[in-house]
Structures are given as C-alpha cells and as structure tokens.
C-alpha cells in the first residue's frame, strides 16, 4: 500500500470513530422523541455495518451492546404511543442489531481466512514450481564454473609455453581459487533461500492446518480418483512452529503422494493422512500412499538436493522440506509401507498444552 493510501485509511478511521458516536446519539434522540410506533432503533444496524469494516471484532461487539442498551433506554424514556407496539418494535430492533453484528463479523472473518489461504497457496506455488528458480541457480553457478574452466585452460597453456610463463599461470590459478569460492557462496545463498528466514514460531492447531492443505490439494486428488482417508487424532497438542512453512511441507508431501499414486497404473488409489502424538511431547504426521513405493537404494537419497524419483522432477521439494522441518526442531524421514507404497513422515515438538 502506498503512503498516501495508508494516510487516507487512517483519516477514514479517525472520522469513523468520531462520526459513529454522533450517529448513535442522533439515532438515540430520534428514537426517544418519536412515539413507540416508530422503530428508529433499527438505524443502529448501518452503524454496526460501518464499524465491522474498520474496527476490531471486540470493539464491534461492545458497540453492538451499547446500541442495544441505548435502544432499551430510549424505550424507557419514550411515553407517547401504544406501549405494546413499543415492546414489539424494540424487540425487533434488538434482534436486528444482534443479527447484523453476528453476520457482518462472520463475513469479515471469512474474508480474512480466504485471503490467508490465497497467500499460502501462492507461497506453495512458488516453492512447487521451481523451473524459474533452477534456471537462475544454473546460471549463477555456471558463471563461476565457466570462469574456473577457462582459467584452468589458460593456466595449462601458460605452463606449456617454452619457457613456462609461471607468473601468468600463478595469476590464473589465483583466479580459479577466487571463482571456486564464489561458486560456493552461490550454493550457500541457495541453501539460505531454501531454508528461508528464521522460522516465525507460533502455537497453532496442526490438524486445522492439515485440513486446510488437504482442501487445497483435494481437487487434484479427486480428479485422479484417489480416496483420501484422514485419521487426525482429535486431542492433538498444539505445535510450536512456523505455520506457513509447515503448511508448505505438508502440501509438498501430499503432492508427492498424489503424483506417486497417479504414476502407478492399476490397484487401489488410496491416500492416508495421519496425525498422532509421539512420546507425549511431539506430534507425528504421516502420508501413506498406494503408489509404487521406493526401489532399492532410493530411500537414502530421497532428501538429497537435485535427486528425484520423478521423471520431470527437480529434486528440491524434499530437500527444502527437510531444511524447513529441521529448522523448526523436527525431523523428516520416509519408509516403505507394508503394502508396498511409500510413507513420508515428519515429527515436530509440541507446544505446551492443547489448543483451547
């Protein structure tokens, strides 16, 4: 957002905070001076609607209570008109205020959730489609490698001269060392990129996260006719980790499993997703697929960079997953299922106590 945009928003906020009480007072006075038959109190609902856009949920609820209180007060102060009609109108007004508050707060929360999952999907897309990333990594690494190979050629030629041009060869060798260090710095940068910034740890409900990611990846699984079974332990303790990063790992494991199932022809197409406690103070997450499993010797390379079992895989997904899980204090591994499919598991330390 631009600075002027921010400024505008702040001014709007200040204006609203001043105008909302003024509007409420006007409505209150109008409600009090008119007779029972006029339900002026329903005009509190626009006040609530404006407030939900700009104020935190707690304040909006307080505001709604204030509106209800004012409605009751003006009912007590009003003396003209039919008393019974007044009771009905006041009741309708209070219900309208209550329903408006509830629905508009729900709406705001739903919007926030939608925004959050869109953002997560974007981040996931960034990490799963690595084509662009690999192109620039290849370029970055090949530059110093080209310099090294070329300098080595020059060095050899200086030495082969009669008499050998030692000083020149020395300079070429120095350049080789410099460029080798540069190549290694590039690799270090890539590793830094893969493991991301220091994880932003928070306590969160792991099962809720799994459900969200499953919902995101669900469509793909449905298209491929995969039966997804969720076995989430219901009293799972909260975990203390970077929610977005862990979400990426869960998404990556699910996509791997879906791809493994898709790659296998025939047989059952099932995907089992399990969450459970492990040793009381850790949670363990497993994705069990009915794919072809691992071939001899594949298990130990699975998490190596640029090593892949997929035909057009890049071999970075699990490597990045491992650095994320390890950075969050957990570990990740793979096993072969007794039915021949693959199991990918990770465990993470639990935060203190269950959520709520």
């Amino acid at each position, binding site marked *: 957002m631009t600075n002027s945009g921010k400024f505008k928003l702040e001014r709007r906020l200040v204006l609203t905070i001043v105008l909302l009480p003024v509007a409420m007072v006007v409505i209150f006075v109008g409600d009090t001076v008119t007779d029972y038959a006029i339900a002026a109190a329903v005009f509190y609902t626009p006040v609530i609607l404006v407030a939900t856009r700009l104020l935190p949920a707690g304040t909006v609820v307080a505001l709604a209570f204030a509106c209800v209180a004012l409605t009751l007060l003006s009912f007590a102060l009003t003396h003209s008109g039919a008393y019974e009609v007044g009771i009905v109108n006041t009741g309708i007004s209070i219900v309208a205020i209550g329903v408006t508050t509830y629905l508009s707060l729900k709406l705001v929360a739903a919007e926030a959730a939608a925004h959050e999952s869109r953002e997560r999907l974007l981040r996931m897309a960034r990490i799963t489609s690595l084509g662009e990333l690999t192109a620039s990594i290849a370029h970055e690494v090949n530059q110093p490698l080209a310099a090294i190979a070329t*300098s080595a050629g020059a060095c050899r030629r200086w030495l082969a001269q009669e008499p050998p041009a030692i000083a020149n060869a020395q300079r070429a060798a120095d*350049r080789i060392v410099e460029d080798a260090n540069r190549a290694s710095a590039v690799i270090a940068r890539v590793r830094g990129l893969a493991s991301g910034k220091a994880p932003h740890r928070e306590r969160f409900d792991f099962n809720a996260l799994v459900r969200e990611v499953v919902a995101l990846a669900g469509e793909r699984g449905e298209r491929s006719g995969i039966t997804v079974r969720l076995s989430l332990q219901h009293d799972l303790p909260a975990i203390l980790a970077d929610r977005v990063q862990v979400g990426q790992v869960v998404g990556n494991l699910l996509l791997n499993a879906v791809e493994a199932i898709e790659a296998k022809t025939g047989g059952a197409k099932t995907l089992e997703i399990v969450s459970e406690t492990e040793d009381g103070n850790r949670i363990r997450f497993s994705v069990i697929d009915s794919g072809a499993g691992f071939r001899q010797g594949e298990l130990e390379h699975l998490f190596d960079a640029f090593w892949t079992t997929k035909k057009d895989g890049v071999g970075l997904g699990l490597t990045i997953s491992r650095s994320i899980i390890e950075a969050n204090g957990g570990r990740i591994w793979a096993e072969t299922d007794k039915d021949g499919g693959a199991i990918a598991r990770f465990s993470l330390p639990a935060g203190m106590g269950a959520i709520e």
Partner: protein
Amino acid sequence: MKPQLPTGKTADPTVYIIDDDRSVRAALEDLLASVSLRAKSFASVQDFLAFDLPGAPACLVLDVRMPGQSGMDFLEHMTEYGLHLPTVMITGHGDIAMGVKAMKDGAIEFLTKPFRDQDLLDAVHRGIEADRTRRLREAANADVARRWASLSSGEKDVAQLVATGLLNKQIAADLGVSEITVKVRRGHLMRKMNTRTLADLIRLLDRIQPT
C-alpha cells in the same frame, strides 16, 4: 562502415568479449592471451557499441544473458548496426531452442558454460579466419569497383557487351561506332581493369554489380 584499411593481413586480429561477469571476462582474456590472441572485453552491449572498432579481423564472444540488451537480442540486430562480426555465443543456461535461434541469427558457435577451452579457441580461430576472408574479399571488391569507376562510359558499354560474348564487329554495330574505336576502348578498359584475359574481366565484372 567500410574502413579503407590495409587488406587485413597485416593488422592484428582482435577478439571482442561481451559478458557482464567480471571473472568470466578476465578468464577469457587470459585464455586468449595464452595463445597470443589480443582480446578486448566489455561489460555490456552498450559499452561495446560506444567503442570505435578498428578495421582488423575480429571475432565476437557474446554472452546470452546480460542486464540491458541481451546477447540474443544484439545478435539478432547486429547487422542493423552495420556490424558483420563472426559471433560465438556463450550462455550459462541454454536450451536447444535458444541454440537453434542463435545459429539461425548467424552465430558461428553456441557454447554452454562451462565450456571446454579448446572448443572456444577453435570457434574463435574459425571466426577470425572467416572475418579475414570476408575483409579480403570486400577490399578486393572495393578495388574492382574503384577500377570500374575509372572507366569512361564508352568503355563501360564496350565492357558489358564484351562480357555477353559479342564480337568487336557486333559491338561496333550495336553502339554505332567503328570497329577500330571498339578495339581501342577494349584495350583501355583491359588495362584499367588490370586484366589480361576475357575470362578475368568477366570474373571481375561478376563481383561488382554494374549499374
């Protein structure tokens, strides 16, 4: 851009390098120096274009991916700048499509980094040879054109008719002059064009497009 230079045999060949990476440039310059080739490098296409090229045989080593104008883009439009340099493309991340496009745009070689030093040197030598040949041919053509320009219009007429295989007598009839005049003009033009045989003359006339 047609420098009236010595034929190019005497001028030292130069290899131009355009690559945004400083250490790649340094390594290439050193490699070329180790085989006694003169090199001059530039960090960008803009820098290269600002440089006043001397008329010696040359070869260009051009990186594909650079900030500013990319090597591929420059290669495609090089002739529009009046440049006819044999070009060796080098790239850190290339695919077949890119290689094919480079070759179609006239590159003499497409190498992916890291490349074998010998491959680069071979390509550069080929490029320099090609440029030397082109320069010699252009210089010779320029010489023929100069000679042609020194002919009188009557002599040019005779030359063109001679080349079509007509006899002196027929030429005289065509031009409406005496056969003696044709013979005299023919003698002059052969001397001016510095040719002894009719076959030589026809070969020379082929290289210029008389208008």
